[in-house]
């Protein structure tokens, strides 16, 4: 009986979230309207997952369903000064979304030869290619959060990199939360044509500390030989809920390097799905650094669909206070994906007795002739390492803090944008009170 009662509560909650959907103005593109309406239908067939769902065993969303949330209708007016501290000096183009709504005044789209813009301004010009790819990588089937995002699809960061272009300066996508009890639906589509190169930074920040909900969807389509660095920084407010789905589809010999840093939010969940064609290469590195009662859940699936693809993954968690980290790393090697080369490692540092991690490597190999390794460690700081630093005059406390910092820095170092790397290192230094 209680099950029925709960599922009704679940669907009522979803209806509440969809209540704002009719406000999404109809597009001139019939296909886009159809995409949204079919997403609305999908949502009505689904419920919010509970801990009885295998994929959500450790992440209890009941707190989220108790929140009364509204979709942000208009962008809060922010000045350039308000977002100054989030700016990256290396960035060549920047798109800013405030509570999910595009803020043209804060954005700078002056990138030569490439498209970096809000979706709406490209819809007419690039209708065919957008129809072909939008919401096609990140399937809405069975995923209520992706479906919700697509149902509300209006503003979106669109990056189109033409054949053989090289965008030397990174492209910064800044998603700012400014209102409490608001749900926003950040959306990103990156279309990387043959042989292009770029670095895309997805950055989720907050200017307020009350509860809100970010439900993001990001899609990457890499054509042959395209090379993309994807940096994702989740530094939401302490009471935020952050659920994000990212899908990357890699064509032959393309290369996708991603670094995902999760530091914020009360509860966060990141699903990353990478599909590799022949000879493609990816890395999917991550660091979750959490404390107090935070929960950070990372689910990744790297799908070796074809032969000769390479994947590398280093995922680390630093868990302090009574926080809870979850990592589920699935590596799929499909029939016929010969000469697959895959390495995964997951290391967790538990800083207190109450810190908790649930970690699961999940290898599904339907093929011989592959090289797949994985390893996981969970532990406290190594006493020999603490002793080494003490024997150089450093106090026990600082030695611990430095080693905690270094543990996280191994992932942060992989971010190819110096100022961002440096500012994150500073954040970790402050968080670990490691003074250098």
């Amino acid at each position, binding site marked *: 009986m209680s099950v029925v009662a709960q599922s009704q509560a679940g669907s009522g909650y979803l209806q509440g979230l969809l209540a704002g959907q009719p406000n999404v103005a109809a597009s001139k593109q019939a296909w886009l309207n159809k995409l949204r309406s079919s997403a609305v239908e999908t949502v009505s067939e689904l419920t919010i997952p509970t801990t009885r769902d295998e994929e959500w065993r450790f992440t209890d969303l009941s707190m989220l369903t108790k929140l009364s949330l509204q979709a942000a209708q208009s962008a809060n007016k922010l000045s350039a000064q308000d977002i100054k501290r989030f700016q990256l000096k290396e960035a060549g183009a920047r798109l800013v979304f405030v509570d999910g709504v595009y803020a043209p005044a804060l954005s700078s789209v002056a990138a030569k030869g490439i498209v970096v813009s809000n979706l709406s301004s490209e819809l007419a010009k690039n209708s065919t290619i957008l129809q072909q790819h939008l919401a096609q990588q990140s399937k809405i089937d069975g995923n209520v959060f992706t479906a919700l995002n697509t149902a509300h699809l209006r503003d979106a960061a669109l990056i189109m990199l033409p054949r053989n272009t090289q965008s030397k300066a990174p492209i910064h996508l800044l998603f700012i939360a400014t209102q409490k009890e608001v749900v926003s639906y950040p959306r990103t589509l990156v279309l990387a044509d043959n042989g292009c190169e770029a670095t895309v930074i997805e950055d989720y920040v907050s200017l307020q500390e009350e509860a809100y909900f970010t439900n993001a969807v990001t899609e990457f389509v890499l054509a042959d030989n395209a090379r993309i660095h994807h940096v994702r920084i989740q530094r939401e407010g302490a009471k935020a809920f952050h659920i994000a789905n990212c899908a990357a589809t890699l064509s032959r010999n393309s290369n996708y390097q991603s670094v995902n840093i999760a530091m914020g939010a009360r509860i966060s969940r990141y699903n990353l799905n990478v599909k590799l064609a022949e000879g493609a290469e990816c890395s999917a590195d991550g660091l979750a650094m959490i404390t107090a009662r935070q929960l950070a859940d990372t689910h990744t699936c790297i799908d070796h669909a074809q032969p000769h693809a390479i994947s590398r993954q280093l995922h680390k968690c630093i868990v302090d206070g009574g926080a809870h980290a979850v990592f589920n790393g699935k590596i799929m090697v499909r029939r016929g994906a010969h000469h697959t080369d895959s390495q995964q490692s997951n290391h967790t540092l538990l800083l207190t007795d109450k810190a908790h991690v649930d970690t699961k490597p999940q290898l599904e190999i339907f093929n011989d002739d592959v090289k797949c390794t994985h390893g996981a460690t969970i532990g406290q700081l190594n006493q020999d390492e603490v002793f080494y630093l003490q024997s150089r005059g*450093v106090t026990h406390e600082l030695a611990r803090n430095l080693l905690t910092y270094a543990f996280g820095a*191994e992932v942060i*170092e992989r971010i190819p944008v110096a100022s961002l790397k440096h500012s994150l290192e500073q954040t970790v230094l402050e968080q670990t009170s490691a003074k250098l």
Partner: protein
Amino acid sequence: MIYQDSRTILEVRNLCASVDGTPILKNMDFTVKSGEIHAIMGLNGSGKSTFSKVLAGHPDYEITSGTVLFEGKNLLEMEAEERARAGLFLAFQYPIEIPGVGNSQFLRLMYNTVQTHRGKEELDPLEFDDFVRDKMKLLEMREDFLDRSVNAGFSGGEKKRNEILQMAMLEPSLAILDETDSGLDIDALRIVAQGVNQLANKDNAIIMVTHYQRLLNYIVPDFVHVMVDGRIIKSGGKELALELETRGYNWVSDEYKAASRVAA
């Protein structure tokens, strides 16, 4: 070198230490005076590495009895970091890697921490840079070495050179080199040994812990000690090391057992 007016740097009496309840050091006696270079030799498991870690203050070892005076002070009451600041230095057999922490940052932190506790001036980054580059010449180290993370991706030889560089910066009164020669090729060994030799003077002392006589060709000891089963059973001059090289360790144990029987 043995000097007439030397002072006692280290005095170990009846030291017993155990790890997880297993006794490792059994009534160790050992004295080091300023200016002296000692070599402690022994087989794996003889307790020689434990001895160096106990002196440096590793928390895994429990001292069950005995005393250790370091320049007249009770060493066993001091935390590991206090021992370092007081002038005791351990060059590690396996130096740890610290990714994300730049070597120059780390060296400066270490140097300034110790300097402050010795009542001396800290160096700012520019002054420190000059200072450390000067010391690096001693060990024939490449410039880029400062920009890399501490020991991360260093070769065995580079790690050991980094240890001796730290020794050169901290100017300890007692340096313990734990198997510093292990895994080094001849060129690296020569450079490391040359560094150590330049640092040795009449005011400090060096203890080398090693398996192999090879290191002692480059750093010539005043005393060679043989350690078996947690204590020193024979001491001699540098020629003892050569004898150990040709004859092995068994004869020393046999001699010791025979002497013990006579004494009993």
